[in-house]
């Protein structure tokens, strides 16, 4: 159950099976799938010398090249391929589709292939972006994709289609025919669960796998049951980079960073290529700082070593090691630049202070003291508007049902400090999207006497790190599922059911997963032998993209009656 390996395996198969000079032809959606798991050099080593987009009309004719097309079978891509085959640029064509292709599309393609250039037509189900071995995303993000249809409980038709195909591709690439469970209260999760079950039954022969001891579980969750996790400031490396800078298809844009060296304007974070990153991606920034320091020291000692070249044999060694050395020095400067930018950003935005309150709001019931510090932070000019909004949202989510809450007065206070109306309206949208009424589990443990007692008990235990106390709701759900104690009343099965403890679990989060959850899944995988979990979602959220999606959705719900109106500006921090 390793999604990265599964996708790599598909791609290696594509480029390995055809000998000779090759060009790889991709479309807009398969490009990120490949770039997440393959490097230029690994493609080159398989004689794949050119990579191009099928929607690029100005490709030169090179009949001596063989062409490997890896496309999503969308109408656009099929149309482009039809035009390509009518007047082929290359010698041989090997067509690989990332999902099931319709009979009629095959017929259409066959009709135009008068030159008989097509050698092969295959379906390889690499139809998702594999980020970590146990983390994938369908990359359904704004502005191209909208998740919600006419209301917050209804799928957008296209998005649902894409998600069903994506989930099926994950199952097929991992060879799993799962039993499906979903979050009862979520209409979207239910719809998806039924749709996936229907498709599995439709595609009977494809899902004919050998029996396993206990059937794998596909668990479909909804983001709105845990709106807190994507709102919190993150302190572990991968999550923090995504929260503050954004990771897009394995790349981080540093071009806004002051005084950045030109070669570091855009950097690649790849587990496969970068052992330092692989080792430290789940560590918090404190431990990371120490590790970077020792990494730098290691580099310095190596430079020193190369400084005192005393003999020719020393030098010979140096010369031979030099490429390796260069690689190391490039990597060191990359991580140093990244870490120093992270520390600059969190210092600039006073995130330590903000995060402490965030964690307290997320974990403990301490109304009066938290309110006091919240009001203080709203007054403070050193805190960004985005942080203020996030804090008030967290406060409103927790104390929504509390008698003594002062949400309205907090909103007034925000107004007074010049926070714009469209940002403030997000607070209401968030309550509508995922207030108590929308959540099925007692997220804050404050809905009954018993759970209140428990959270008080939790508070007494004491914590080791103030900034990383919060553990996402997903972790608890998974723990229960592994023990076979996840209640069927809250997480019902669609179709067949089982009482066995699951060994392989595939989670799909409607509305997007987060890197914090990915880290917890990795931890569970490492600490629980015999259990393998893969997490995925419609996209990977940070607080900005999450709030943006909510803002966009509610904007469109309001606009559905009256078409006119100005779109609110994008929510998010300005970098400079």
């Amino acid at each position, binding site marked *: 159950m390793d999604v990265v390996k599964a996708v790599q395996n598909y791609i290696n198969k594509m480029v390995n099976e055809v000998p000779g000079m090759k060009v790889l032809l991709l479309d807009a959606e398969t490009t990120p799938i490949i770039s997440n798991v393959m490097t230029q050099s690994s493609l080159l080593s398989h004689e794949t010398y050119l990579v191009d987009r099928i929607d690029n009309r100005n490709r030169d*004719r090179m009949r001596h090249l063989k062409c490997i097309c890896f496309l999503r079978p969308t109408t656009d891509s099929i149309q482009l391929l039809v035009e390509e085959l009518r007047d082929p640029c290359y010698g041989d064509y090997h067509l690989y589709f990332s999902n099931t292709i319709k009979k009629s599309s095959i017929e259409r393609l066959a009709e135009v292939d008068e030159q008989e250039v097509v050698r092969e037509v295959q379906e390889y189900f690499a139809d998702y972006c594999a980020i970590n071995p146990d983390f994938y995303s369908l990359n359904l993000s704004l502005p191209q994709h909208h998740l919600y249809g006419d209301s917050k409980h209804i799928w957008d038709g296209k998005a649902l289609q894409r998600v069903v195909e994506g989930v099926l591709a994950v199952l097929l690439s991992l060879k799993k025919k799962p039993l499906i469970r979903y979050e009862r209260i979520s209409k979207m999760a239910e719809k998806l669960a039924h749709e996936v079950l229907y498709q599995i039954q439709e595609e009977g022969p494809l899902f004919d796998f050998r029996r396993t001891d206990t059937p794998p579980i596909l668990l479909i969750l909804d983001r709105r049951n845990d709106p807190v996790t994507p709102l919190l400031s993150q302190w572990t490396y991968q999550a923090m980079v995504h929260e503050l800078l954004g990771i897009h298809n394995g*790349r981080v844009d540093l071009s806004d960073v002051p005084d950045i060296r030109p070669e570091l304007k855009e950097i690649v974070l790849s587990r496969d290529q970068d052992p330092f990153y692989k080792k430290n991606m789940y560590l918090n920034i404190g431990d990371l700082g120490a590790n970077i320091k020792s990494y730098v020291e290691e580099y310095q000692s190596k430079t020193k070593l190369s400084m005192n070249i005393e003999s020719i044999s020393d030098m010979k060694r140096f010369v031979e090691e030099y490429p390796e050395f260069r690689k190391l020095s490039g990597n060191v400067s990359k991580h140093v630049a990244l870490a120093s930018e992270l520390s600059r950003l969190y210092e600039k935005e006073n995130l330590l202070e903000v995060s402490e309150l965030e964690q307290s709001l997320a974990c403990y019931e301490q109304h009066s003291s938290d309110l006091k510090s919240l009001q203080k932070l709203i007054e403070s000019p050193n805190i960004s508007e985005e942080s203020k909004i996030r804090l008030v949202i967290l406060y409103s989510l927790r104390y929504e049902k509390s008698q003594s809450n002062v949400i309205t007065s907090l909103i007034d206070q925000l107004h007074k400090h010049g926070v714009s109306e469209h940002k403030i309206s997000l607070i209401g949208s968030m309550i509508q999207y995922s207030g108590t009424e929308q959540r099925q589990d007692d997220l804050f443990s404050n809905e009954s006497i018993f759970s209140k007692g428990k959270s008080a008990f939790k508070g007494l235990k004491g914590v080791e790190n103030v900034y990383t106390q919060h553990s996402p709701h997903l972790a608890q759900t998974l723990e229960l599922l592994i023990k076979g104690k996840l209640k069927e009343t809250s997480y019902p099965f669609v179709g067949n059911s089982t009482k066995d403890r699951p060994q392989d679990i595939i989670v799909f989060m409607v509305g997007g997963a987060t890197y914090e959850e990915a880290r917890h899944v990795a931890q569970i995988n490492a600490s629980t032998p015999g259990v393998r979990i893969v997490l995925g979602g419609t996209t990977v959220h940070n607080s900005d993209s999450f709030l943006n999606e909510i803002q966009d959705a509610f904007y469109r719900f309001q606009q559905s009656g009256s078409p006119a109106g100005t779109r609110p500006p994008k929510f998010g921090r300005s970098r400079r």
Partner: protein
Amino acid sequence: MMSSLSDSNPFTNLSASSNSFPTNNSQRESFDDFTNIEQCLCPLCNEPMVSISQLYRHLSDSHDIHLDSLDSSTDQKDDGFIQLLKKAQSTILNPLSSKAKNIAKLPQMAINKVNDVDSIWLDEQSDVVTKIHWQFEDDNDLCTNSTCDKSLNLRNGKYNCRKCGKLFCDSHCRLPMRLNRQALHDPVEGIWCRVCDDCFQSREGYLDTEGVMRSHTTTFIKYRTKGIERAHLEGNRLEKRLEKLAKVYATQSSPENNSQSGLKPSLTIMHRRRASEQSIVKWEDDASVSCCPLCQSQFGKMINRRHHCRLCGRVVCEKCSSFKISLNLTNCSETTDNDSIGEVRACKTCRDAVFRRKEYNEEISKTPPVVMLYQKLMKIKTAIDTTLPKFQDMLIMLKSQEIVNQTHADYQLAARTRKELLDNFAQFDAISKKINSLLARSKTEKRLQASIHLAANQYLQQNMLPLQVLPKLLKKEHDNDYYEDYHDSSPDMLLSVFDNGRTRTISTSSTKSLKGEETIRQQLAVLLEQETLVQGYIVDATKQRKFDDVKTLKTALDELKVEINKTRKELGTTSSTSSSSTTSSSTSSTLSTSSTLSTTSTSLCDYDFMIATLL
């Protein structure tokens, strides 16, 4: 930037407050460590427990008390702690019933030492699944798991993996798997048994990374053949017509054309020709068509005139029939006459139908220079790929047998293979450079050539650089021979210590035999090679603005230059400088490939960005 980081760690304020993440597990484990209880009893059934963690599991499995729910499971309305108290209360209130139940279980538990995977599964398996293959217990058994060296006792646990039968400690034999009576994996009918990690993972398909693939090639070809037959028929029909046209032109034009060469064919001929053309294909009536069927432009009397395609007979406009197909008899028959005997008007569709296939085949059969060179490149690559492992085997063999004698057959064979490999590598490099320098007709072609060059460099970096290290083995032995021959370590000293080399060189000059001179030349060649290498690095490093590196490299270069001069002088005293320069230049030329190679290879690792950036 780096120094600032090492001076003051910007994360110290955080790292002070952050250690590891609080997990339930770690806390419990540490509690175990502190208490260090050898034995404790279950408070409910008085069963002896090895450790606190086992007690937790026992409570959870046998008495259904879940201490984990203390800090997890928020959706359970009744809180874990209270649940625990309630359970305890109920069991204390009815001690007899629970005790009785456990006493019944006890003997079995004693045999199996309490399976904490799940007690229910255990009860079944003890009767059904065979134990014939179990490893015999001993007093000093060790855990079979290769990463674990615990001795098996009451504290660590001692379990037979139900599948392979070997003995393991508790933590390495606790995975559940379904087995049948013969202790074989049976996912359908089997009973849950505890097995070791290896058995668990070696289940068929468990570590499979190969996803589902579905081929539609046959369906595609089926559909295509249908369409292709139609297209073929159409193409053939048009070709036939073309043939006929050519014959008509040939018979009609040849006698008259000869007599009135240079003049336009007379009207009568035109008429006659038109008639015969129309006999081949029926022409469409002018009046029935008001606009061009291909481009939809309106026909007029004067401006956009009607034309007939001679192949299909349709009326088309000037623009869409501007392709004149030249007729020659070779098209249809095997005559040697290759000259065109005229041109006919044809519409776009007909032209494509007739010529597309032909053009495609022609383009395929033409091999551009890149392809030729590339084929050569690949040939050399396969040669290298076959000899390289052989050579490595040889080296290992030489090393293991400690053959240092140069004259030994194996040694010489290895040396020859090495030379062969180096030649191949040099050729490989040369061809890849040639490909890169080919004249490109377009940007894409240039990109293709550059990529091939890059890939070739990558290949060389992977395979040739290790080879450069390996020969040291041979060379070392080589040098050793010289030691023995001359009892003079000076040539090697020259290599190793050159900061106080002056004193050494004096000693070298004292032992100037013919062979000594040879070795000095070899040193010089090596030095020169190093010099070019380092110069390349300096250029590279300055480009990358890595001034630290540049400094280091520069000092190295200066020292090298001093050394080269010294060696040159030395040679000059022994023999004519001309001979030395020729030898050095020849060696350096063969080796310069390697130097440029490694400089490009260094930039390669920076090249390793994702493809998406390319697009």
